[in-house]
Every structure is written in C-alpha cells, then in structure tokens.
C-alpha cells in the first residue's frame, strides 16, 4: 500500500524529516507516535502534498506509484485522505456543498459518473446517521461554529464519504472528550477492511485503545526510532519519549 523510503523533507529551508522509512501493507493500521516537533505533522502534510513541504530526498511509493510530484487533489482522487488536526473553517460554503464538490471531483478524476443530487443526499444521510451527526451540521458552513468534537466528527464524515484507501489521521484525538473519541474511533474502525490502511498520528496512547494498531512507530528527530506492536504504545505512555529525544523525561 505505502512504502516510504529514506524520506527527507524540508519546510522553509529547514530539514524536518531526515530519512523516514516505513511500510504499510493493505489492511494494516499503523500508529505514529512521538514528541512535539518530531515531524509527525510534517510527515502527514508531505504525504498529502501540501505546498511548501518539499521532498528533498527519498521516495513515497503508494500503490506502486511515486507520489512526490502529484498535486494534493490528485492524491485525494487516488484514495489518500488526511484528517486535519485543526480542520479549517470556510464561511459561506455549506458543508453539504463542500462534500458534494469533493465527492464529484474525485469521481470525475476517476472517470466515474458524478452523483446527482438525490443520490448524493441519500448517501450522505446514511453516513451522517452512522456517525451520529445531525442534518443541521450539513447545512451549516464548513466547520464554522463547530465545537472541537464536531469538527473532528466532520473530518470522519468526509473520510466516510470519500472512502479513501489510505487514511492519515493527524492528532485526531486532540481536543476530544471520551464520548467524541469513541464516536470518531468507531467511524474510523467502520472503514477498516483488508483493502484499506490507516496511519494514525498521535501524541497519546489513549486513542489506540479504540483504534487498535497493528504496528506502532516512534518518530523523533525526523526519523523512525523504534517500531513495535501495540504494547509499544503502553510503554511510551509509561516512560515518555525521553529515550528518543536525548532529553530528560519531564
């Protein structure tokens, strides 16, 4: 599914990723944990293709294809989805319009017929119901006036609607209370299948109680420092990241 080889990336001239190696097979969920400033969010932006995040070395092979030259919208159409840590508010654009545009853009790109209004609404209703979201949230402008939990739920709704092959969840647990965390996790788990993979980026172990990973990686100082099973997350929770940063534990 995803093979990252010796990935180097810079942001505003500063090297943040210094040789990341990572392989995610179809159906797997990988967690990437690490201290603040370790390059977790940079990795997610680089994978999604954000401008200003420059790959200076190495390769990102997704479904057998090198991604590094593709625009973000092309990557989305090929099935990559990034759930944002801080979802963006877009005043004046109704959430349902935004979702409709996204779905049809992706379908156009894939050479599929666009969904008409009725088909789209039917599909959307079913998804919102699963995620315990109100129709009212669809009418409101994208993320405007949403609580932290609603914003994250909206990210998961977008994910559910776009049905990505590779989902990258960037600190999806931040700012969530336990109920919201459960709902969001259920949404993510509902998408788990032998064909889909996820990269769950998180600072804390808590989210991994709900989204149980196949593998856990520690990202620090721009490199994967350690890889293990789900028990590694518990270990990190206990000992902190000090072993990987060269700093004293707090």
């Amino acid at each position, binding site marked *: 599914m995803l093979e990252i080889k010796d990935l180097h990336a810079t942001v505003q001239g500063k090297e943040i990723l210094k040789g990341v190696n990572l392989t995610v097979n179809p159906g797997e969920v990988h967690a990437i944990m690490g201290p603040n400033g370790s390059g977790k969010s940079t990795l997610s932006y680089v994978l*999604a*293709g*954000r*401008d*200003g995040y420059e790959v200076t070395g190495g390769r990102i092979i997704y479904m057998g294809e090198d991604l590094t030259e593709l*625009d*973000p*919208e092309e*990557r*989305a*159409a090929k099935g990559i*989805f*990034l759930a*944002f840590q801080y*979802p*963006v508010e*877009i*005043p*004046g*654009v*109704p959430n*349902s*319009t*935004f979702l*409709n*545009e*996204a*779905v049809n*853009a*992706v379908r156009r*790109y894939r050479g599929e017929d666009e969904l008409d*209004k009725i088909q789209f609404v039917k599909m959307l209703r079913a998804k919102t119901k699963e995620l315990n979201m109100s129709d009212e949230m669809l009418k409101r*402008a994208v993320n405007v006036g949403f609580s932290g939990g609603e914003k994250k739920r909206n990210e998961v709704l*977008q994910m559910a609607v*776009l049905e990505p092959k590779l989902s990258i969840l960037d600190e999806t647990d931040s700012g969530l209370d336990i109920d919201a965390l459960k709902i969001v996790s259920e949404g993510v788990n509902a998408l788990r299948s032998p064909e889909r993979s996820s990269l769950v980026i998180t600072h804390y172990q808590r989210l991994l109680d709900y989204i149980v990973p196949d593998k856990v990686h520690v990202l620090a100082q721009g490199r994967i420092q350690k890889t293990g099973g789900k028990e590694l997350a518990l270990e990190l929770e206990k000992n902190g990241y000090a072993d990987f940063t060269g700093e004293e534990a707090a």
Partner: protein
Amino acid sequence: MTAVSFLEGGLEGGLQGGRSLPGDGLEWLKNRRDKGAERFGALGLPTPKLEGWKYTRLRPLDDTRYTPIKDGVGDAAVKDLPTVGDVAGRLVFVNGRLREDLSDVSNLPDGVRFGPLDELLENDPAWAEEHIGSVVQNDDQAMLALNDAMMDSGFVLHVRKGVVLTKPVEIVMVGGLTDDAVAYFPRNLIVIEPNAQATLVKHHVGRGVGAYFANAATEIDVADGAIFKNYKVQAESMQATHVSTVHARVGRDATFESFNLSMGGLLSRTEAVITLNGMGAHCGFNGAYMMRGNEHCDNTSYIDMAVPNTTCKQVYKGVLDDAARAVFQGKIHVARDAQKADGRMLNKTLLLSDDAEIDTKPELEIYADDVQCAHGATSGQLDQTALFYLRSRGIPEALARNMLVQSFLGDALDEITDEHVREVFMDRVVHWLPAHCYLAGEWKESA
C-alpha cells in the same frame, strides 16, 4: 471658459452638438447648466492634489477626446441584456439614449412614476424644478458640476406616499458599440415619498469595442418611514470610464439600503454623500468589487449622521487580481448633537496577485459623545491552509480558489436583504471567477 480637452467642442460644443437636450426651454434648468459649467470651469478635472482624489486619477480623460452623445449613438443592436427577472418596469439606455423598443413601463402600479428625465421635464416641469438639486448639499464636486453642465436625460423614479412596489424596477445602461469615443452625462432622480417602498436594480454593461465615458449624477430622497433599496451591478467594458456621484437624504425612520457590485470597467469611481437627517434613519451602504487586468475601482462615501438615533452599516469587500487597483474611502461623520448614533464600517480586500493594490481609508469623525462607532480595514492573500484543505479533499485548485473567493465575498453579499437579488448577484460573482467550473445553480440549491 476653460478648455475641456477631453470633450469634443468643450462644454459649449456639447450643448450645440446637433442633439436636443432635455428641457432646453426651461429657464431654471438653463441656469443650472450655466452654473454647472461655471463651477466646472473653476474647479477643473479633479487632480491627486485633492484629498478625495489622491488615489484615483481620471487618466483615460488625459488622452482620449470624447464626443458628447448625439442622435444615432444609441441605435446599435443589443441583445441578451441582464435582468433580475420579474420586474415592475424596465428602462434600457444605450450610450445614454433611452431605447423605447427595449424598455417596458406599461405595467407600473398607480402612484409610481418611472421613466426618462426628459419626459418629466416636459410633463411636470414644476415638480422637476422642485426636486432636481434639492438633495445635493455641496458644490465642490467637479464631476457633479460637469454633470450639471452637460445634463442628459437619465431616469426618474418617483413613488408616492404609502405606495409599496412589490417588484423591483430595473435600469440597464449599455455602453460601447461606437466608432468614436463617446461621453454621456445621465441625470437621475429618485424620490420615495413618506412610507413608500421600492427596490431599484441597475445594470451597467459594456458591449463590444469603443471607449466611453459615463458621468452620472443621482439624487435620492428617501422620505420619512420610506424604504428604498438601491442595487447596482457595474460590469462595464475594459474601455469604460464610469463616474457616478450620488447624493441621498434619509428621513425619519426611513431605510436606505445600497449595494454596489463593481466587476468591470477600466476606471470607475462611485462617490456617495448620504445624510441621515431624521431620527431612526438607517443606511446600509455596502458593496463588493472584483477587478482584474489594469482595472481601477474607487468607492468613496461620506455618511453624515446628522441627528440623534441614527444607524449605518457599511461592508465593502473586494478581490483584486493581476495589476488591478481599488480604492476605498469611507467617512462616517457624527454631528455634535447626534447622540446614540451607531455607525459601523468594514473594508476587506483579498489580493490574488503581487501586483494588485488596495488603498483603503476608513474614517470616523465623531463630535457627539454618546455613540457606538467602529471601523476596520484589512487586506491579505488567499488562506493557503484553507486552499490545501479543499484540495486535499480532491477539489481541483481552480475550483478551490473560487470557493474561497466566494466564501470571502459572501458576507458582503449577505448584506443584500432582497433574497432574489442576492442570488442573482452571487451568480454574477461566480461567473466573474476565472474558471467557470463552479456552477451557480449547485451553490444555490444546497445553500
């Protein structure tokens, strides 16, 4: 008389140019013209030395010689004129001449007068004398003096006491389609009597090739308890110079709402002087501008909150691309005894190119001590995080940009209280955007 190099034949020539001017036989009107010519002669064209013209120079007038309109310049075939749809009446002018064949005022309700100014001068000169010049307060505006001097027939909208117009009336002003550069000077008059209500939609469109200079003046009297909504779309051509001077007076408990959507014209300036001179008067004076290429758009306004308990709100937002330039100069003046005034002013501009420029000058001048007033201005670029957010959902870059531009202008357009007009204007915004991949219909349906 000073030389007027931008006009063939000067101010005199305009009057003798083989055309009949409205109200030629009326002594008071002749006096007004003469005084206008005298004033313009003394003032001359505005220069950047004047504070109010620091950022806008009427450059096309430097190197073009315009011919005042004469018979025939309005005869060109025009079709596909813009409209908001179901209207109570419609007047179409081409190069400043009324086109009866394209106009329809046959179904106006009782108590509504909507027609060309020359007709009013012929049928009801006493009423015209009483109202023309009655709202204008200052005589230091050169472009208004020029309009006085050259005054052509614009339109008249007169709604009698208590009459409520349920449908809008519509004006279409078409420019271009001439071999020579032409100039015209429409004079418009709007009188909404006490407790009457009306909505006016004005479309200014440029067609084909041909430079033109339109210098309009409009007086608006919104009497006590009346509601008047004034909506304008300025989609002039890239060879157009559009200058519009507006004077409005808003009476007790009356509402004057204005929205100016500027989306085309080589050089345009709308200058408004609004006086809230009755308690409870409200003015919503808003607009949006979208300019590209070398277009220059100036919105200048002076709102005088002259008596206690008045309110005004001003929201102007714009998008500038290429080397386009916009000017926003807004001043709210609160008179010494105008307590409890509530005045708000906001100007925001999105710069899509490094060469685009906005000069913004929001001002409050407050002499009362118990008021609530605020003003603000910002300019910036498209939010790159928002752009990435949309693109990461598969939305192509051009479409994502358009969505963000619409999102940005949306809250200015939200100030339009007439829902239908708001939709029509949003549709115009959508079609101005560079990639027409975004369908207006879809936007509306899901909103």
